[in-house]
């Protein structure tokens, strides 16, 4: 498997000065002095706090500035999407999926449609496959750019946020031109997409692909060798490969610990095995490695995007399957059977045969699993989302205990959580 190890370009010592020589005074306390252990303090962060990236509440037990215990409280955004899904038709669930991870909505749209299609035994068209790959890789970059900007703010660098949001705005425009919405895209349908790509969209995407590397280079100039960035992130929030697997970490958080597990390589879907790209893995499992892995992932996603654009085949975007796809508008207006078919499909909804299916895709946050169960009716019996952020966040107490209070913010930021998907 093609993997790429991302490595530090600089000496791994946070206590060197700008010139590389040891700094006169240690920048960080050397450790906890046992005789100073006194009364523990209770600190509450959130639920309304910008550094928690949503409505996450952390209760911390502190000894001085060291975290003894961390108890995350979630559920503030809980709206039971899974229960709502049991009251909706198969296609009507699509708008719920992009409200989970609103930082990478298209990945969730696609993953849901793919799970239902697998259960129904539908093979989408070649053009649809490539379009979905393009959309998923685009939203991986979309999500990583937001992570980069907000993490930099959390750690004290504001400028990066402006650089990344300038690029994100281009992706917003791509979303809008294709789906009509900037965030709540709802782009997929069972068996295809809401529409074919509009005229000029691929050229717009090409402009974005050509422009992003320059911004990434600029951001790397700002951060990668930055003394503050290094000091705040290196050796902070270290998790070993064994612990990372045991705690269920996936995505860049797992790969930063050196485990080259990527669903796109290990259990490929949509011909990912035919794209030429590498999986970046880290070596130290700390926040800095997670940063390096995500930066490299964006560059690899650009490679996939370029290859997908080059191979984008023609032909229909929806499958030719009357069970799931509406007849053409011209047919509905002129042909009685098509009109009845249209009416039945809209009023009764798609009927999936009894069965179940699990579909995993590599989301920007980690492994996203969609599990759908049907009893043959027009609505699912169960629709389950294995959200990567939910399980990544459950490892937070393990990672922050023993660190300083200020590191909690950096570690939480480095996990790249999105509360919409955690609370669902």
């Amino acid at each position: 498997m093609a993997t790429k190890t991302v490595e530090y370009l600089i000496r791994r010592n946070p206590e060197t000065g700008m010139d590389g020589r040891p700094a006169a005074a240690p920048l960080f306390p050397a450790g906890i002095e046992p005789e100073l252990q006194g009364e523990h303090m209770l600190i509450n962060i959130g639920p309304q706090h910008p550094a928690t990236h949503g409505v996450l509440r952390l209760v911390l037990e502190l000894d001085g500035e060291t975290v003894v215990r961390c108890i995350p409280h979630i559920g503030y955004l809980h709206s039971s999407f899974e229960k709502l899904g049991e009251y909706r038709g198969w296609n009507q669930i699509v708008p719920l999926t992009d409200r989970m991870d609103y930082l990478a909505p298209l990945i969730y749209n696609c993953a849901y449609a793919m799970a239902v299609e697998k259960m129904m035994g539908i093979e989408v068209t070649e053009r649809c496959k490539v379009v979905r790959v393009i959309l998923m890789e685009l939203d991986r970059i979309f999500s990583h750019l937001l992570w980069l900007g907000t993490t930099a703010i959390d750690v004290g660098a504001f400028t990066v946020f402006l650089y990344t949001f300038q690029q994100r705005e281009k992706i917003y425009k791509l979303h809008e031109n294709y789906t009509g919405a900037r965030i709540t895209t709802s782009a997929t349908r069972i068996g295809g997409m809401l529409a074919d790509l509009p005229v000029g969209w691929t050229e717009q995407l090409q402009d974005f692909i050509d422009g992003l590397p320059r911004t990434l280079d600029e951001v790397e100039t700002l951060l990668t060798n930055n003394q503050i960035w290094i000091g705040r992130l290196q050796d902070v929030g270290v998790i070993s490969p064994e612990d990372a697997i045991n705690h269920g970490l996936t995505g860049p958080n797992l790969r930063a610990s050196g485990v080259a597990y990527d669903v796109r390589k290990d259990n490929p879907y949509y011909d990912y095995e035919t794209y030429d790209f590498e999986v970046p893995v880290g070596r130290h499992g700390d926040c800095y490695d997670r940063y390096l892995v995500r930066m490299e992932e964006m560059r690899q996603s650009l490679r996939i995007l370029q290859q997908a654009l080059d191979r984008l085949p023609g032909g229909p975007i929806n499958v030719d399957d009357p069970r799931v796809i509406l007849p053409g508008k011209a047919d509905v207006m002129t042909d009685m059977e098509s009109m009845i078919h249209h009416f039945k499909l809209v009023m009764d909804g798609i009927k999936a045969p009894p069965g179940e299916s699990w579909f995993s895709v590599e989301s920007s946050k980690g492994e996203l699993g969609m599990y759908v169960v049907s009893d043959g009716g027009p609505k699912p019996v169960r629709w389950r989302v294995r959200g990567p952020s939910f399980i990544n966040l459950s490892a937070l107490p393990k990672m922050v205990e023993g660190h300083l209070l200020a590191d909690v913010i950096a570690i939480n930021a480095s996990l790249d959580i999105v509360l919409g998907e955690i609370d669902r």
Partner: protein
Amino acid sequence: MSDKLKDALAGLAAGPESSDAAAASERGPAADPNLHPSVAALRERFGSAILHHEVVAGDEHVVYIPADRVIEILGWLKAAPEQDYDFLKDVTAVDYGGGRPLQVVYQLWSIRRRHGLRVKVELPLQALEIDSVTGLWASANWLEREVYDLFGIVFRNHPDLRRIMMPDTYAEGHPLRKDFPLRGRFSRLEQTRRALAVNLERDYTPEELQVGGTPVQIGTTGASGEPRP
């Protein structure tokens, strides 16, 4: 209010319809165990404890096991070198409604060997208890809490079994069960009354630290009870 809207609201209040297809939760035809290396090995080692094996959606293998042997069988799947299921992707449950047993679903994956297996356990509604697998995979911690919160299945020996999505004081039951109405069991008035009666100060007391289990000392053990490196 139009009749159609009235019907729709009545339908919402009545809760989800019980499934028409009585056969939906019944098991599919048994598949050839030799199709999947782990299933053949499981059959050989545990014999009749492997209640059923089926293939769904083309290539997904599902194995049914009895509730009282979960730790034994899943522990073997994790530890046996030729199985090596080191990664627990998901724990969830399925309620088919109509008084049928709840299914607890484990999604296993082996990162090294790149194969997956779905293990299901059926629990009758009168005995919704099962052993926790947090001792095998730490990732089960929150997943089992979620199943407990939303389905009411109790996981024995779980280190910190309490609600995770719904508030601690939530008294309306377990929302993802089929007998739970979409808008909750209480009236809107009662829900508002309860929401206003919540004592927010309680969240900021030292008792808050008692909810996450027993305190741990730095340098000796982590949250999961394992020694720190």
